[in-house]
């Protein structure tokens, strides 16, 4: 337990130092855009490949429920609420944690093992500002964008299942799609994913930055990154969901 607390404390200090470097100039904007671009490109495929089948499945199971009441026309409302509020932010973030988080941990870990980070420090370049801050900031930008794409893909999945496979009426589907969704749901999803992006970036860079023990150490860091980042943002998700859409909503 003491180890756990010590680790959390170090993580807190690390997060604070990185946050400070994100907020104050000079910014390493070139690396920021480069990271945002590569992460975005590498995560688009997985995010779409996961949210689309998920839309199919919700539609399939939702129809099974609503058939009992003869309320098939409520299906699109359920799909849009579920996808936009919860599923797309969570799934997009899981994949970003798996894809981008682990690659950050691997990159920084390899740099630490090869003493490249020490070399940067020796050259009087602040390695947190130069290497870590642009990565975290890039994830905070890319996560909401991927979430938006995930929304679209999930809704497409729902549409394909309901209209294409089950033969519901396309006009009815489109008419009911937006009946329960407010702009606030979209914004809430974007805020959520931004927070998740920050969490994932910080956890990943923390594990990479303090990697020890050669190739095996890097592997272990990557492993821990995915698990801990996922844990952290699922916990954050519960808190944020309660806050945005909680019992009063």
């Amino acid at each position: 337990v003491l180890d756990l607390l010590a680790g959390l404390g170090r993580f807190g200090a690390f997060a604070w130092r990185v946050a400070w470097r994100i907020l104050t100039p000079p910014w390493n904007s070139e690396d920021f855009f480069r990271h945002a671009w590569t992460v975005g490109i590498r995560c688009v495929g997985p995010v779409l490949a996961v949210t689309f089948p998920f839309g199919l499945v919700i539609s399939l199971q939702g129809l099974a429920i609503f058939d009992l009441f003869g309320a098939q026309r409520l299906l699109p409302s359920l799909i849009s609420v579920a996808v936009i509020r919860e599923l797309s932010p969570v799934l997009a973030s899981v994949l970003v944690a798996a894809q981008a988080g682990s690659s950050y941990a691997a990159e920084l870990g390899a740099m630490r093992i090869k003493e490249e980070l020490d070399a940067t420090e020796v050259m009087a370049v602040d390695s947190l500002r130069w290497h870590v801050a642009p990565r975290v900031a890039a994830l905070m930008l890319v996560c909401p964008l991927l979430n938006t794409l995930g929304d679209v893909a999930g809704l497409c999945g729902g549409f394909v299942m309901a209209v294409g496979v089950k033969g519901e009426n396309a006009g009815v589907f489109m008419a009911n799609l937006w009946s329960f969704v407010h702009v606030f749901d979209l914004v809430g999803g974007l805020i959520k994913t931004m927070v998740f992006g920050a969490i994932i970036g910080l956890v990943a860079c923390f594990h990479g930055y303090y990697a020890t023990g050669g190739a095996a150490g890097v592997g272990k860091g990557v492993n821990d990154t995915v698990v801990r980042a996922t844990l952290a943002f699922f916990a954050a998700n519960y808190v944020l969901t309660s806050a945005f859409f909680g019992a009063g909503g």
Partner: protein
Amino acid sequence: MTAVLAWLGGLAWFFVDWARASLRCRPPPGQTFAEAYKIGVQSLPVLLTISAFVGTNLALQGYNAFVPLGGQHLVGMFVALAGVRELAPLIAASMIAAKAGTEMASQIAVMRTREQIDALEVMAVNPYWWLITPRLYGILLVMPALSLIAVFTTLFTSYCASVYQLGLNPSTFLQFARQATHLKDLATGEVKAIVFAVIICFVSCYCGFFSEKGPEGVGKATNRAVVVSCVICVTFNYLVSQVLYG
């Protein structure tokens, strides 16, 4: 596109190679249970935490979706259907992929980097048999149990959230939850768990087995292992659901 197809073909050949090497032999003695212990017991805390949060969120979102229709009492049904049929097995799979799958990938990739796999071959030990068989049998042993644990944790926490946070009636919740789910749904979850276990094991081991050497190679293999196994698991989840409920 061709790269993806080539990769999948490689995975298929990997499976064939493994089957040829291992199906007729007994697994390496003693290792299967060690792997099962490692995969099962070490993943348990993570799995419990994640499925607890999935349960609470499911209840919150279900409540929000049904309140405009005046159907708060349906939350129990929604949670039971969504949790038991789809989410809990899938969440269990993605956490096992993140925890045990990455560990398999990074261990095997490290062995590749240190040329220990070549050393095994030099000693006339079949690496497929020695490295993959115990992991596969281990994950097959524990995965159904982990999936069941995830199902019940999800149900329990969503019950807690609905009753204590949202103030729903406990007996209505239980009644609707019981009405919605049957033994068949649990069995489907188990089928899914077994399918996911095979996918996770082979994808992770494949990524590790053919990784590039050096720290970046290990990192990349581990990275790819999680992403690809999650994507394939979600796709198969759809296929299994379509076949069984479609």
